[in-house]
C-alpha cells in the first residue's frame, strides 16, 4: 500500500526539495493494523480466560505408595457432616476430637477449620498428611474448599470414606 507520495518520501531526492520530503516521512500503519486484527482475533478465539488449576488428592484406601514409611506421631481426620458441622479427629500421641458448629447460614466454617489445622500443625510439625471425608450428600465444592484450606498448613490431603 505504498502510494506515490510515500514512495517519493523514500526516494533520496535532490537538493532542498528532496530533504524536505524526507523530513515529512510518514510510516504506513495500515498493514500493521491488519496484522494486529488478525492476531487479536486468533488469540481471542483460542484463549481460555478461565485459568484451570490442579489440586493433588490421594485416596486414603489406595493410590500411590506413601513416601514416608515411618508412622506419624499423630493422625488427623477431618469429616464434613451434611448439617454443616465439621468434625476433626486427632489420634496418636494426642487424642482428641474437635467439632466446629455450622455457620448461621448452615455453611461450613472452613476458616475456623483452617485455623485449627494450623494450630495442630504448629504443635505437631511431623504431621504431613490428613484424611478428609464427607457425607454422601456434601457438595464437591465444599470438599474442594476444605482441601484448599487444609493444604495451606498440611501438604498432603487424602480423600477417605471408601
Amino acid at each position, binding site marked *: 500500500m505504498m502510494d506515490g507520495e510515500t514512495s517519493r518520501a523514500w526516494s533520496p531526492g535532490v537538493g532542498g526539495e528532496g530533504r524536505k520530503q524526507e523530513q515529512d516521512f510518514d510510516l504506513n500503519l495500515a498493514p500493521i493494523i491488519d496484522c494486529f486484527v488478525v492476531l487479536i482475533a486468533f488469540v481471542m478465539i483460542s484463549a481460555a480466560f478461565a485459568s484451570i*488449576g490442579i489440586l493433588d488428592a490421594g485416596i486414603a484406601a*489406595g493410590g500411590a505408595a506413601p513416601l514416608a514409611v515411618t508412622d506419624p506421631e499423630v493422625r488427623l481426620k477431618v469429616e464434613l457432616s451434611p448439617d454443616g458441622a465439621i468434625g476433626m479427629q486427632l489420634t496418636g500421641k494426642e487424642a482428641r476430637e474437635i467439632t466446629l458448629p455450622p455457620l448461621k447460614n448452615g455453611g461450613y466454617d472452613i476458616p475456623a477449620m483452617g485455623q485449627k489445622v494450623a494450630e495442630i500443625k504448629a504443635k505437631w510439625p511431623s504431621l504431613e498428611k490428613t484424611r478428609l471425608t464427607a457425607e454422601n450428600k456434601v457438595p464437591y465444592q465444599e470438599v474442594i474448599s476444605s482441601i484448599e484450606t487444609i493444604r495451606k498448613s498440611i501438604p498432603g490431603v487424602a480423600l477417605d470414606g471408601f
Partner: protein
Amino acid sequence: MDGQMSLQITSMADIFMIILVFLLKTYGTGAIDVTPSPGLVMPLAATVSGPAEGVKLEIAEGAVRVNGAQVAAIKDFEFSSGDLSAVGASKTLAAALDTEIRERPGSQVIVLADRRAPYVTIKAALASAAVSGYTDFKLAVVNPN
C-alpha cells in the same frame, strides 16, 4: 477544509498493541488444556500446581465422560444403584477406564467434576479409576484469580 479526511490510525495501533499484549499474557496459563462441557460448573480454588497430563474424567449433571466421550449416563449427578459394585465403583465407568488404560497406559486421572456433584459420586468415580489401575488423582478447579 479541502474535503479530504485522513484517518488517524496511530492511536488505534496503540490500542491494538495493548489488547494484544494483554491477550498474550493471559494466553495458556491454565495447568491443563481442557474445555469443560457446557453446563459444567467447576469448583473454585486457588492453586499453584504446575501443568498436568492424564485421562480426563468429567462428571456433569447427566453424563460421565472420559476424554470427552460419554461413557455413562447419570441422573442428577448420581450413578444408578444398579451400576455400583460392592466397593462403590461404577461398573460402566470402570469398564471404560479399563479400555482407556489398556490403549494408553498411564497412572494419572484428572477429575473435572461439577461443583454441585455430591461426594458420593466423586467417591464412585475415584473408586472406579482405582479399580482400573489409576493411582494418581488430580482435581481440576478454576482459579478465582
